């Protein structure tokens, strides 16, 4: 995975999502919603985008006491970071309903990349 990672904070922990697995990013209230294949993930803060994470697999001790799927662990600066599996993200992140998809291609929008709720669609910049 060399394509970059979206880094967010949620629940006091730092999480990363591989760039190619991010389907959308939206502001919601004071936080954000990150859309991935499994649904919408809540984030308290977007920390940025990074590349070149040195990933390690989760060890047996961590898996025993934190029974969630993860693609790996890394250090981002000095912050421990968990790279989530976009098909099976941690339940703690799946606390919001998916934001509504744009309902119609004929819906007027001031920007093709942003709908009325501020959802940034994949491939936009």
């Amino acid at each position, binding site marked *: 995975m060399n394509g970059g990672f979206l880094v967010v904070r949620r629940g006091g922990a730092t999480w990363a999502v591989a760039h190619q697995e991010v389907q959308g990013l939206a502001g919601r209230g004071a936080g954000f919603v990150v859309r991935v294949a499994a649904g919408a993930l809540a984030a308290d803060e977007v920390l940025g985008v990074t590349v070149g994470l040195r990933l390690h697999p989760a060890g047996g001790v961590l898996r025993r006491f934190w029974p969630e799927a993860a693609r790996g*662990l890394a250090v981002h600066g000095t912050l421990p970071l968990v790279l989530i599996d976009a098909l099976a993200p*941690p339940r703690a992140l799946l606390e919001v309903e998916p934001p509504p998809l744009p309902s119609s291609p004929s819906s007027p929008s001031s920007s093709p990349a942003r709908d009325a709720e501020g959802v940034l669609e994949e491939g936009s910049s």
Partner: protein
Amino acid sequence: MAPTTDPPFASPVSSSSPGSPASPAGWEAPAAPQGRVEATHLLVRAGEYVCALPLAAVRQVLRSLPLYPLPGSAPELKGLAEFGGDLLPVLDLARLARAPQGANPTFPVTVVAWAGPPESRELVGLAADAALDVVVLPAAAVLPAAGIGGDAGLVAGEALVAGQLVRVINLQALGQGS
């Protein structure tokens, strides 16, 4: 490079093998035949209990590392910490030992130790209240801890050290499924 601080050792509870009086000169590093090394343990206060960790498995004793909790984790897992560029799961030693939490569970000490079976051992952090002393606990001095309800063999047994009951922790059992 791993962070290094002065080991925050507290006042020892003993200075010798169990059942013998403490040496007036204090604990001295054993000149170590293999069996003695395997029997040497670090005593750590965890909540209201004192736990014995195999010294051969202990890599470092640090003042508490900054912790980042993982939502959805079991209560034993305090969080993740950065240690020398790598990540450690940091566990609450008192909970692992089934010890009641102390009056002020601030976990000022993190013991970095190898856990799990030898073929797949990994570094973990054990959040504790204080590192106390190093003692020799021969296998015969460790009695089975019946009825503790330890977690998958994590509490290997109990031993009497200078009149105080100590829970002996089997770190090799830590990486195994519950």
